[in-house]
């Protein structure tokens, strides 16, 4: 058994027992103890690098299969619609999509309708595209369209004519001189739209203003906070959806399982699931302790009164 897991379990379990006994004696647990406890639990899990296995659920698997089964050379949009605050959750999704699409020989059109998404897009281009796919050629295998202000207004324009909004790519190079843009006039020429985000505009706006309007298959990944709001669009309006770190971890697990060349890649989402699991156990324990304490005190009051 993993030593880190045993040490974490002893520390966390011991602490929870102490809090349980305190609450049974009727003493309040300060909110700072709760925060500190969650912090220590996560720190231990990160320090000992606890890992748990993941299996892709249908909503993730169906998106994986979509990219997997598209014929090589298909045109895929990957839009970075997030900021650094969301990055730990959703950047692993963006990296996995880019990896998978390039490995299958698809052409990627990187967009961003969030100003902050553009700099995070550079991280993916540097860490994944340039390092892991040195043979990928800019303008033939992938293109960076950069950021455009205008929120859903941008989508409203590029669904009919990309050149109206983007005279050039992120470097100002005319789109007509980029080989992979020659037969692309609007988003309707794309085979799959992938939006990664968690705010507005984001996945929902891509569904409303691009996917539904142009009848283009749309999928994506969202920060956990906004994921429940996107489930109603699956499966008819969204091909598939990666929800928070769990969705990203499932995609990483599936990618490694199906493509052995990625066996040694960094898996930040999978690495995050260990601390996630531990933290959730602690929070659930706190909810149980709180309820036991509440019902006990209520019964005591009823007996006294």
């Amino acid at each position, binding site marked *: 058994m993993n030593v880190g897991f045993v040490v974490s379990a002893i520390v966390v379990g011991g602490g929870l027992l102490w809090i349980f006994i305190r609450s049974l004696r009727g003493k309040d647990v300060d909110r*700072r103890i709760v*925060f500190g406890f*969650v*912090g220590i639990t*996560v*720190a231990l899990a*990160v*320090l000992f*690098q606890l890992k748990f296995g993941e299996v892709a*659920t*249908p909503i993730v698997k169906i998106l994986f299969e979509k990219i997997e089964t598209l014929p090589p050379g298909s045109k895929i949009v990957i839009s970075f619609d997030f*900021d650094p*605050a969301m*990055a*730990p*959750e959703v950047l692993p999704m963006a990296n996995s999509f880019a990896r998978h699409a390039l490995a299958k020989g698809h052409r990627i059109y990187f967009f961003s309708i969030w*100003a*902050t998404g*553009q700099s995070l897009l550079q991280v993916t281009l540097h860490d994944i595209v340039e390092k892991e796919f040195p043979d990928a050629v800019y303008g033939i295998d992938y293109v960076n369209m*950069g*950021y*455009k*202000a*205008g929120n*859903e*207004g941008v989508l*409203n324009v590029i669904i009919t004519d990309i050149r109206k*909004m983007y*005279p*050039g790519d992120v470097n*100002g190079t*005319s789109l007509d001189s980029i080989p992979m843009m020659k037969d692309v006039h609007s988003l309707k020429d794309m085979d799959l739209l992938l939006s990664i985000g968690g705010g507005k505009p984001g996945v929902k706006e891509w*569904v*409303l*203003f691009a996917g*539904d*309007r142009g009848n283009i298959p749309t999928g994506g990944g969202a*920060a*956990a*906070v906004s*994921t*429940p709001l996107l489930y*109603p*669009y699956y499966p*008819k*309006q969204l091909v598939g959806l990666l*929800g*928070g*770190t*769990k969705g990203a971890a499932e995609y990483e697990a599936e990618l490694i399982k199906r493509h052995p060349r990625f066996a040694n890649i960094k898996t930040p989402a999978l*690495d*995050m699931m260990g*601390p*996630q699991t531990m*933290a*959730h156990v602690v*929070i659930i324990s706190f909810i149980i302790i709180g309820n036991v304490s509440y019902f006990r005190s209520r019964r005591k009051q009823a007996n006294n009164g």
Partner: protein
Amino acid sequence: MDIRQGFLVTLAAFLTLSIYSFLYGDNPLYRFAEHLFVGVSAAYWMCQGFWSTIVGNVIPRTSETLAAYFQVPFKEYSWQYIVPVILGIILLMRLVPKLSWISRWPLAFIIGTTAGLNLPRYLQSDFIQQMNNTFIPLLPDWQGIGYFFSSFSFSMEGQFVQILTNVVIFVGVLCGLIYFFFSKEHKGAFGVASRLGIWILMVTFGASFGYTVMGRISLLVGRITFLFHDWLNIL
């Protein structure tokens, strides 16, 4: 790691700890980090907006001289691009108290355009299409009782689970709507459906809460990994 990078990583670690210090209580360190974050974000968005919209879209269509100055290819002169420039300048009149009333015109234009753009899309995709998504067969892929029992499974892809999912969606939507129907007293069978609606809502809020917790913990993991790996170098 050179001195400059070391300083930047230490600064980032200091700001991270300053933000988390709010969990202990409000304090000047937290307020400093918060104001810095908001200011830097606003400045970053403004710079990106200027270079992508003004330099990227307006200048190549309005001024050959400015296009040459900013080293962007001049497209062709187009007078339509002058209109948003004028509206943008008028919008800035908010900064001049005596002329601030003029800024209401572009503001009205922005609100009107946004409403006009959004209304048909939301009506089509969020209203009609969402209703369409609720019209689902309660017995999907039904090929007889024999097939059902031969494929009876709790696996996520089995026919039984598909039937169960569709029934839950149908009953859930119906009972959820009944809970919000206040023209009839919630008694008898109607009351039972209403109470089931509350349970459906509670489960939904619970799922949302679970996801929110996951999101917050992910951010904490990201920050702790940064502190241990990039700053303290112990991972």
